[in-house]
């Protein structure tokens, strides 16, 4: 039972401690002292975790002082799950993590039931992409075939939507930024700089560790490549590489003509009513389940437009003469275009570009992926 703060004086361990204090006036003194100590210890054990949950749950209503005057707060606040339990982790969206670690808990009396529940929930969030191979363009304009290359694709699963603010909130609340196992060692000194506008750990455009009001179902943006990769690892998945991303977007069928791959998930021609790019006129990211007509055959949505998507691949490309394009920093490939992509040709399944992996921009998000052999029972199901 969650008691409101103003009723805390009802907590019985406090009464027990008080009784101990009264008894302290009587003899023998050690009886009184023992009652008081027991009362305090029991109160601490029972209510410290609850108090933490209270503090976390109350946070949106009482944001940090620095953010109090701007204070966009979480409206779609999920109940704070207990991340030490399997149901708690499932509530955080860590289905793949739970399933992949099933050996550690499957012997629990409810193990089989929990596993079935986790698989069905995970299935609902992923789209299956069959084995194939894709043609990756090697030059800026894609007109020189000398540097193009074919990449074979093993079957895999990819997020039906990009990761939302509400999903990412679990990662922030669950201590993802403090979990050293999730970050490469060389990036650790920088993790403390991955702050929101109020200086709390979180995406660049958040405030007070919370996402802006009303944007729970929008893609999380303002996160760098390392934050995207850490989140994917936390939920037991990974970022797709760019060949996988392209396969998901152009749905190339194995055995079809080498040169044939669709420009868009829905077909060959751009249709700005099926995606959110500059000419669509929305001017900002929209909810991740909008534009159902722009989905791939497996109903994976918004691969084109809304936000660019980080991939796991390094970005390398050449100009028409074959000269390597250089950058001042190692670059990761981003794909798909965003709500502010000006040229329609730059929001296609084939268009390749890159970004500084430390960039925390307003229009770059991500989706997660999973190799089919990582959870064989999922694919067979």
């Amino acid at each position, binding site marked *: 039972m969650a008691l409101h703060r103003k009723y805390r004086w009802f907590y019985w361990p406090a009464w027990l401690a008080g009784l101990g204090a009264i008894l302290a006036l009587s003899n023998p003194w050690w009886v009184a002292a023992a009652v008081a100590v027991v009362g305090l210890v029991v109160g601490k054990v029972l209510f410290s975790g609850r108090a933490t949950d209270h503090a976390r749950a109350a946070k949106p209503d009482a944001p940090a002082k620095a953010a109090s005057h701007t204070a966009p707060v979480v409206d779609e606040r999920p109940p704070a799950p207990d991340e030490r339990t399997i149901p708690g982790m499932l509530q955080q969206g860590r289905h793949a993590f739970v399933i992949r670690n099933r050996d550690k808990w499957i012997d629990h009396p409810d193990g089989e039931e929990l596993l079935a529940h986790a698989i069905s929930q995970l299935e609902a969030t992923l789209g299956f992409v069959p084995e194939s191979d894709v043609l990756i363009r090697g030059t*800026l*304009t894609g007109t020189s075939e000398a540097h193009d290359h074919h990449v074979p694709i093993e079957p895999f699963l990819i997020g039906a939507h990009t990761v939302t603010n509400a999903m990412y909130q679990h990662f922030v609340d669950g201590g993802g930024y403090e979990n050293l196992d999730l970050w490469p060692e060389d990036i650790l000194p920088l993790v403390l700089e991955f702050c929101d*506008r109020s200086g709390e750990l979180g995406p*660049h455009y958040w405030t007070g560790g919370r996402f802006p009001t009303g944007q729970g179902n929008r893609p999380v943006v303002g996160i760098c490549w390392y934050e995207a990769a850490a989140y994917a690892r936390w939920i037991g998945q990974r970022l797709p590489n760019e060949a996988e991303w392209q396969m998901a977007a152009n749905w190339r069928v194995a055995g079809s003509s080498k040169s044939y791959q669709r420009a868009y998930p829905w077909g060959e021609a751009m249709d700005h009513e099926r995606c959110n790019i*500059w*000419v669509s006129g929305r001017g900002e990211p929209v909810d991740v389940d909008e534009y159902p007509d722009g989905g791939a055959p497996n109903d994976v949505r918004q691969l084109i437009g809304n936000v*660019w998507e980080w991939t796991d691949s390094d970005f390398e*490309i050449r*100009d028409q003469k074959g*000269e*390597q*394009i*250089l*950058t001042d920093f190692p*670059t990761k490939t981003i794909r798909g275009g*965003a709500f*502010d*992509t*000006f*040229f329609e*040709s*730059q929001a296609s399944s084939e*268009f390749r*570009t*890159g*970004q*500084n992996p430390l*960039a*925390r*921009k*307003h*229009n770059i998000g991500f989706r997660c992926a999973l190799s089919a052999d990582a959870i064989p029972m999922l694919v067979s199901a």
Partner: protein
Amino acid sequence: MSVATEPVITEQTCLICGLENEPESMVCAECFAPMELAVQAIRQQAVPNIISVFGDSNVGKTVYLGMLLDILSKHPEDLTAVAKGVYSIDLQASLVMHLAMRKFPPKTPSEPDHWEWVYYQITQERAKGRGRKQPEKQCDLIMPDLAGEALAAELAEPRSFQVIVSLLGISAGIMVLVDTLQARSGNAYQDFFALKLLSYLDDIVGGTRKQKIRKPIAIVLSKADQCEEAFDDPERFAKTNLNRLWNFCYTRLENFQFFATGVVGAQGYILDEDENRVAIPLYVEPRNVLEPFRWVFSRVS
């Protein structure tokens, strides 16, 4: 204002410097501005306002102006823009075709007779008032794409480019572009260049010690796509990284505002034969391109 009641403007009158040119002149003999501008103004029966974009070489004036025109021609939100004269489309067409090929346009030549000039009719819908729609605001605009090298030469040796002196004097509004990445890197050159430009403007149009410059002036932090701090708070960025300019604005300008803008999402480069960097736009995503213009335009009568 109708040209019919302003006989001083003829097809031989340079709209920039006012010189009466010989018949059949293609460009002004004094400042090299195209005479087509006067022809267009007479045809439109309007005295156009001039909004100028100034800034150092390589600060991104052509890219900014070309992208601004292309966005305006797509009728964004409350603004409608119509190009007058085929020559007015050349700048944006060149920019768009280059960017679509993932190239930047070539540098603007220093010679004024090679600059691109555009003549646009802009209509701005007014916000609806209490129960009735406010009248539209219409304005003819001339915007030149001038070379940074010419501006630098003019600042180094005043009156060497008459067209720049004239533009500074007659522009109804000014946008000063400053390279955000250079400023962030601690390079004071951008700070000094913008400071010199505004000081020069103060010499030309400023009044007494107590009279500030009244022209609307937008300080535009260009290439901010790689610098989120500039987008978060342009004025704070300027105060920190362009402090001389920021102080001058508060001392001598009456009507100014800071903006951050970006056109490309990321840049790469190749090395030419002389090992010089040639910048490559990796993708295009205009950001806050319209806002400085809208701010200046709203203050131009």
